[in-house]
């Protein structure tokens, strides 16, 4: 291999330096054709590598990354794309007033309301209830009516009073006929009264939505710390929104009795009406089970007997260890959607009655999981044992508590008294929360795809992202137009699609293929081939540079 570097040395310089005593034979100079051929050979090899080998390698090892509208996704996450607003349409029914009087009352009340409102995203829009209720306006653009206010004159009262219907979205306002505002008065007391009533009805909703929109930190300035605390506690406790919830009612007892309960009748009687009211928001499935010999976990602190109360006490801090998760069969139900567990625990006769020490309560909520009710049935006087069967009547307190716990776990606000109004509020809260959650998922996905360039992005993800974005936009416009049920429906789809695109399985497949392995596979081939190729190229370049220099010197 001694001839390796010899070809570029010119015979002339060699001759001058060859001052050894051995006179060496100098090869004849290379013909320009030979130099040309060598250049062409090397160029051909490199051309094949650059124009054929490299593209094939690139093509076969590259990963498919569908195009994502990154900027739009980030805009949604930064809530630049949409400012959610909640215009509530309130109908004013004025059977006892003239049209002009009613118009005037409407104007002044709206004016007072706007003055009172401090949260611009949530505002109440008054509208006179049309008399032509017979011809239903079936166009889709019609906004949901949040509340109907009926103004009823009543003779025997001095100041106006209001009454909310607990089973419909209706507020009756009774007023003395003398207080019908004159067209000239700019701030009649009746308007002020109505405005204040409405403001009071929606104050909690406003605070909650402000709390959600501001990212669970600070709500409105005016909300008292107690209210803010209770709102954030309720939001923390409530389940994540789902289309279907599985309600699982379990009877646990440490002994063998009671082993049966009138559960079908109890569910039908105490729970079904509530679940039907929730139908526009979520669906529910109900399953029940009886579990005997359900003992506390061995590490759980045991209840203590309190002589003064004549009851067994559970300490409040021990309630978290009450559920024996290892042994009680409380596995989630099959199917989509989370499971809400309700546990009816009947203590053994030797530990009855069992109550919570601090507040003598017999029930508590486990946030985002379910509720527990301690049922202390009357022991049979003879044998001091639990009854073998729990009747529907004895289940009544438990199911009243479970209904209340279910409302809390679903995030329903505590005011106003009317259930339809609370459910309407819940729809708006859920729509707002879903909108934010889907938007932030979009932002996370955008950041993820930007920070991990080696993960593939399948076309399904791009499709899901575009569905999400279009439904987010639909949600936003529905909210703006006051169609909250439609907004919730599109927000649901947006959230589902966003989750699907974020948790796409095929995106994470190749992340963990390390570069070292690739090198280990390529090196045995690339090493032996690459070295002669590179050396050949370097030599040829050197020769070209040298000949250029020589030519310039010659010139």
């Amino acid at each position, binding site marked *: 291999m*001694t*001839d*390796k*570097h*010899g*070809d570029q*040395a010119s015979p002339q*310089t*060699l001759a001058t*330096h*060859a001052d*050894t*005593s051995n006179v*060496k*034979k*100098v*090869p004849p100079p*290379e013909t320009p054709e*030979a130099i040309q051929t*060598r250049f062409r*050979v*090397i160029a051909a*090899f490199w051309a094949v590598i650059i124009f054929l080998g490299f593209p094939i390698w690139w093509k076969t090892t590259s990963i498919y990354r569908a195009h994502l509208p990154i900027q739009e996704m980030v805009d949604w996450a930064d809530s630049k794309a949409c400012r959610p607003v909640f215009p509530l349409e309130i109908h004013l029914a004025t059977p006892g007033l003239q049209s002009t009087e009613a118009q005037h009352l409407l104007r002044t009340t709206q004016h007072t309301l706007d003055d009172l409102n401090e949260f611009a995203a949530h505002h109440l829009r008054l509208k006179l209830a049309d008399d032509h209720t017979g011809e239903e306006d079936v166009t889709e653009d019609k906004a949901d009516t949040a509340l109907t206010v009926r103004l009823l004159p009543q003779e025997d009262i001095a100041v106006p009073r209001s009454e909310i219907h607990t089973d419909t979205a209706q507020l009756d306002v009774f007023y003395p006929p003398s207080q019908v505002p004159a067209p000239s008065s700019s701030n009649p007391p009746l308007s002020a009264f109505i405005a204040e009533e409405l403001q009071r009805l929606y104050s909690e909703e406003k605070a909650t939505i402000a709390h959600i929109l501001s990212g669970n930190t600070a709500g409105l300035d005016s909300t008292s710390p107690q209210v803010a605390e209770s709102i954030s506690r309720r939001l923390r406790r409530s389940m994540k929104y789902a289309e279907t919830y599985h309600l*699982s009612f379990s009877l646990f007892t440490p002994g*063998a*009795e009671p*082993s*049966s309960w009138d*559960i*079908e009748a109890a569910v039908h009687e105490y729970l079904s009406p509530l679940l039907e009211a929730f139908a526009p928001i979520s669906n529910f*499935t*109900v*399953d*029940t*089970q*009886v579990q*005997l*010999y359900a*003992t506390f976990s061995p590490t759980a602190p045991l209840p203590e007997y309190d002589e003064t109360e004549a009851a067994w006490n559970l300490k409040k801090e021990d309630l978290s260890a009450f559920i024996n998760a290892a*042994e009680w*069969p409380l*596995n989630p*139900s*099959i*199917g989509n959607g989370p499971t809400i567990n309700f546990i009816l625990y009947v203590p053994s006769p030797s530990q009855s009655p069992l109550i919570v020490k601090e507040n003598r309560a017999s029930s508590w909520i486990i946030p985002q999981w379910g509720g527990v009710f301690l049922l202390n049935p009357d022991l049979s006087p003879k044998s001091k044992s639990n009854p073998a069967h729990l009747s529907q009547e004895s289940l009544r307190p438990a199911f009243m508590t479970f209904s209340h716990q279910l409302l809390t776990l679903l995030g329903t606000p505590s005011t106003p008294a009317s259930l339809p109004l609370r459910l309407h509020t819940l729809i708006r809260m859920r729509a707002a929360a879903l909108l934010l959650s889907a938007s932030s998922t979009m932002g996370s996905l955008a950041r993820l795809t930007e920070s991990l360039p080696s993960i593939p992005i399948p076309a399904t993800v791009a499709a899901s992202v575009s569905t999400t974005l279009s439904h987010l936009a639909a949600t936003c416009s529905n909210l703006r137009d006051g169609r909250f049920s439609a907004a919730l429906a599109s927000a649901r789809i947006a959230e589902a699609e966003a989750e699907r695109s974020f948790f796409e399985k095929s995106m994470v497949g190749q992340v963990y293929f390390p570069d070292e392995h690739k090198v280990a*596979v390529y090196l*045995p*081939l690339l*090493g*032996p*081939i690459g070295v*002669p*190729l590179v050396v*050949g190229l370097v030599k040829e370049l050197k020769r070209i540079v040298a000949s250029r220099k020589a030519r310039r010197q010659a010139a």
Partner: protein
Amino acid sequence: MTFFSRFSLTLLALWSALAAASSDYHERLFLHPLPQSSLLASFNFRSNTSQQSFDNQHFRYFPRALGQILQHAHTKELHLRFTTGRWDAESWGPRPWNGSKEGGTGVELWAWIDASGDEEAFAKWITLTQSLSGLFCASLNFIDSTRTTRPVVSFEPAGDHPPTDGLHLLHGTLPGEVVCTENLTPFLKLLPCKGKAGVSTLFDGHKLFDAAWQSMSVDVRPLCPPEGECVVQIEQTVDMVLDIERSKRPRDNPIPRPVPNDQLVCDTSKPYNSDDTCYPLETTTEKGWSLSEVFGRKLNGVCPLTDSKDPNESTVCLRVPHDRGVFTSEGTLETKQADGFTRCFTLKASEPFDLVIPEQPVTSEVPLEEPILNAERTIVGHGAERGGMRIIFGNPSDTSDVDFIFFETLPWFLRPYIHTLRATITGRDGVRREIPVSEIVKETFYRPAIDRERGTQLELVMSVPAASIVTLTYDFEKAILRYTEYPPDANRGFNVAPAVIRILDSPHTRDTAQNAPVFIRSTSLLLPLPTPDFSMPYNVIILTSTVIALGFGTIFNILVRRVVSADEAAALGAQTLKARILGRLVAIRDKLGGKGTKVE
């Protein structure tokens, strides 16, 4: 001689007497000492739920987790088996429950699924196996299309199904699954009394999985009595054969110790009998045992869900001759059955129960029936390419033929040649004759395998004549798998699922009241496949790279190098670094070598 196993008959008869009882929950322990100091303990738990409350998901005795899985997968009838060990039919006689409550080694699952088409049924089947896998902590999710078959004649629904149902039977086995305590714990959780009361308190994973043979089963089926509403019945069974001597070893000191010298019973008539030499005498007495010794604990009362007022409700039954002395805990009611061998005990609620059989001389034995059919299946042949299967059926009866269905599923990488199916018959005279297969096999259902998609399914309706042994053989070829298809322990071999044999109603069995099917399962097989050297891909990469690099380097060098003669090369290379170093080296060598060359 009856051909129907009287022992299994007893078990079934006792049990079916309870089927009409009012209570919804029953449990039963059946103890049967077997020869060679073994004890068969057969636990059974059964409860009914009305179809309506099952559909509405109001679960009382029925486990909620299992119920929801069945509803989710539209499964109408389910049979799940966990089995370890081998039933020694030669010494222990016919199988408990006539084999209908046991599975092949490992896990076996078959279910009737309500679906409108084959594909939908398979999708639901996959849902079912995945969910059951989570519930029972078993690898049931590995039952994929290659391990799933749709038997045509081998299984029949045990429940009452409406005739219009589009029911699909799917069957899957995992012969390599190791059944252990993690499968027992979820099994116990399905019971209403959860091992806290009743006969289930005897379950102890250490004892259960130390047994010579054990089988756990879960059966769910709908039952529609002629009068009354339909019910969904769940029946759970645990059968185990314990070695009494082995089970009596204390838990903290389980190593067997030799019998001390002074307790040895020696044959003193032997000439070599001395202080240090002993020919042990065979004992004529039966070893004593008790529940607490064998199971390590006492039976804790009665599960209060059973109807304790029912006089037929006896929870523990023992099959020993009536003259054998048996002691039980106080307050236990003993009823002896008319057959002279079975006695049952009605337990006192909430009192621990123990049963003691003291060591006593054997005066009479419980007769052991002979099985209806003996079957054995082995892989024969040698080499990595081909092999053969041999199945031996022995009919011990002298008078009647045995009709049965032989069902086997073969993995796709075992490719049978059905045309090589041969049959030989050996009579009592010991002469072996080859006979046409059609003489033995009445009908054949064969579904060939598709590589990597499904396995071979072979169902043969056969008849073995009286007092003869029939041997079926066929050849097969072993496929070569892809590199990634080998499991980590590839050299261990691949499991081939056991064959299932269902005895068809013969005139003898039809006479009896019981028409429960009789099942026999062969042992599972281990098929050695040709296994590659698993470092092969890297060797191939390196070897190919080397060869390519060699060829490439040579050609490239020839193309770009300048060819000069050797003496010219020296001149060309003189002023390079290497040449200078070489020159210096040559100079030093010359100097040291003392060769008379001129050196400057």
